[in-house]
Each structure stands twice: as C-alpha cells, then as structure tokens.
C-alpha cells in the first residue's frame, strides 16, 4: 500500500495504517476508517431497521426487552448468561415476554449492567410506540 493510496479523510474514526513511503520505507500513518467514511449511513440504516423490527416483536409480546438488547449488542444466549452471571436455562426463559414480568429487580440490574443501560431505560421500550427511538447507549 503506497502512502498516497492509504490516506482517508475521516476524523470521526482515526486508525493507524502501515504504508510504503516515497523513499521505499514502510511506516505508520494516521488516517481514517474507509468503512466509516463511506458506509456509516448504511450501518445506521440497518441498525434502525433492526431496532424497529425488534421493538415490534417486544410490543407484540413475542420477546422480552432482554432479547431486544441481546440481539442489538450481538451477544449469544450463553455469552449473555456468562456476563450477567445467570444460568443459561434462566436466560432462555427471560428472553420470553411471558416470563419478563416475574424477573426480580436485582436480576434486571444484572442484565442492565451488561447492556450498559439503566433498568428504567430497559423498561422504556415496553411503553414505546413502534416508531419511537429507544436510547440504547445510556451510561448507567
């Protein structure tokens, strides 16, 4: 990769790229992310569609808010269980809307910690309208 081909103007996401300089030496340059520069809008579009589709599933009682966040944060059932310190079998139940109301507050907190949101934020989705945006990135 020649230096002239490596530079990407993308201040939102900077990366280090090793390139060939004019004198033939290989050195690092600070440049930008190709994907963020060219395709961030596409990522956001897909993310929005996924949020909407999951929200519909929650509001129609197919799945619980825990399922919503698990899928959004790209976690598997066993990974979520291991992170929250909850048995896999229990997590499986908690993903179902029917069992969500019986989850104790302390257990909800364990999930909220993994998702990096507050419990009230997690519950917000249950009263959201299908086109409302739910903040998935609030620091608790």
């Amino acid at each position, binding site marked *: 990769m020649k230096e002239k081909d490596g530079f990407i103007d993308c201040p939102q996401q900077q990366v*280090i790229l090793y390139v060939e300089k004019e004198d033939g030496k290989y*050195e690092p340059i*600070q440049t930008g992310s*190709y994907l963020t520069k060219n*395709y961030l809008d596409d*990522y956001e579009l*897909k993310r929005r569609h996924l949020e909407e589709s999951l929200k519909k599933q929650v509001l129609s009682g197919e799945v619980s808010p825990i399922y919503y966040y698990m899928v959004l944060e790209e976690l598997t059932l066993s990974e*979520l269980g291991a992170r929250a310190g909850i048995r896999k079998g229990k997590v499986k139940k908690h993903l179902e809307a029917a069992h969500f109301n019986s989850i104790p507050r302390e257990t909800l907190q364990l999930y909220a910690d993994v998702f*990096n949101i507050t419990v009230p934020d997690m519950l917000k989705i249950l009263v959201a309208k299908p086109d409302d945006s739910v903040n998935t990135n609030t620091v608790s």
Partner: protein
Amino acid sequence: MGTIAYKHKMAAHCESGAVTSLLNNAGLDITEPLVFGISSGIFFGYFHKMKSFAFPTFIVRNKPGSIRKNLAKRLGIKFHTEKFHTPDEGMKRLDELLGKNIPVAVQVDFFYMDYLPEWERVHINVHFIVVVGKEGSKYIVSDSYFPKLVELESASLRKARFAGGSMSPKGFLFYPEYIPKDIDYKKAIIKGTKKACFNMLKIPLPFVGIKGIRMFAKKIVEWPSFARDTEHLSHEIMKINILLEDQGTGGAGFRFMYATYLQQASAILGKPEWSGLSKEMMEIGDGWREISLFASRIGKNRELGPDRLKELGAMLNGRAETEERFFRRLKNSIN
C-alpha cells in the same frame, strides 16, 4: 491523584500498542512492528460455530496475551501481572500503582470505552489500554485507537475490567518491571519468525493458519444460513472489512504491519532477502485490502447471492495460496 507524564501514541493494534507504549515510556526504543513480529503476532483462525459468537468470525492475530508473553520470553523483559477476585480489590490496586506513578496496562471489554463512537464498540473482552492517571471520578487513559489521552468514568472502567463471559479480564493488569540493558534482537527475531511460520503452516487444526483461510473460503457460502435476513448478512459481510482494517490491524489484517516488521528485521539481521520478502508481504496485504473493499461493496449493494459469495471465497483461496508459498519461503530463509 493526578496524571503521570506519559507520551501517548496511536498504534495499529491495542495489545502490541499498549506493550510498545509502556516499553517506550520506560525508556526502551522499540517499534510496534518489531513487538508484533518478535511475538509471532501474525496469524489466522476461522470460527464457524462457537458458543460465544453470534455469527461465524475470524481472527488475524495470535491469542490475546501472547504478544506480551512471547515478547517477554524472547527479549528477557519482565512484566508484573495481576488478576483479582473482586472489582474492589482490582480498582484499589490500580489506584495504588497510579499513586506510585506507574502507568498500568489493563484488559477491558471494549464495549465500555465510552469515548469511542457507538458504532465501533462491541462486546469483546480482550481490549488493552494504559491507565496513566485519575482526576476525580475519571481515569486518564492512553488507548491506541484514540488520537489523544482521554477520560473514562471510573464506573465504566470498573465494568470493563470485570466484565464476565468469554475471555473475562478478571481485572488483569500489567506493567514492565525489568528491561535488560543489552537485548539480543537477532535471536529474538529468528525465534519469533520461526514460530509465526509454524503457526501459519504447521498447526494440525483445520481452522488455523493457511488451512483456516481455506476453511473460511469454503464456508463463506454457508453464511446466509446464519443470517436473520439480507440486512443482517450484509452487516456481517461488511464486518470482514472491520476485522481486517478497522479493529486495529495496521491495514489488511496485520499484513502491512508484518511487512514493516520484515523490513526492519532485514536491516537488523543484515539479511537483504528479507527486504524482498517484506515487499511480497506488502503485496499480500494489498490482496487482503481488495477483499475488504469487495466485502464492503457487496454488503452495501446487498449483492449477497451464491455467485458473489463464491467470488469472495475464490479471493480468500487466492490469499491462502499466496501466503502458503510466502511462509514456506520465509521458513526456508531461516533454516
């Protein structure tokens, strides 16, 4: 508590970057490519089905922690390392070390690095940052992926250091304790390069090294069966670009950084043939870059039918063939 005087520098990769940065700040003049090459950082592994991953994925570097361990063994450096039973113990110990003006590298879940944009942050327990100070409730952090020193809330650092799940950090921290005055780089380069050739050519597992690239090439056509819908498949295919280019690899899945290592090693060893090999590795990297761009393009255009995926598989097979020839030649140049 305050902040330790620390020279922050962005790096290609978080682990080789944290190790290089700690050593540079402790007075050892060593480059990130040398750290990466000596520690046999270059690798390939493909994971088609794993409990902890929601989708097939691949890695382009050796096991997390190996960069520090292999470098220490080969250069005679000693790193102090610690893990903790409870977050309270781990945070207290970090504060004690900062109080003694010791910059400390910690292993964290990348997801809680609040200073990075949301779209970059995923749950992965093997990110490394260097903590260099504490101001009120915030820690001052040197992260190879961020252009300057940055603040991180204490609560976020605590969560990140004690996240559970696969490869859980358990508060792991390290810092250099001893750096020898005279280092035999030549011996270390030979050892590190030999091991990298072994990893790429000889490990008898079908999903690692060259065999792993071939498995990736073969299995990519099965990816649609894992996807919820076309947009999900598009997202995962575009992540090929992220894993090769954006998640701290120095470009082309570490291949550009390895080329730089070989160029630097060629000068240290006085081995001109490695200069030629470094050029070849740079070209191999260009091929990986084409794969990254192709994956992002077909992902964006939703051209994800069997023909396009086969085309992607053929490009990956091309990399496998070129890298197999390359690593055999590199290995033969040592013996």
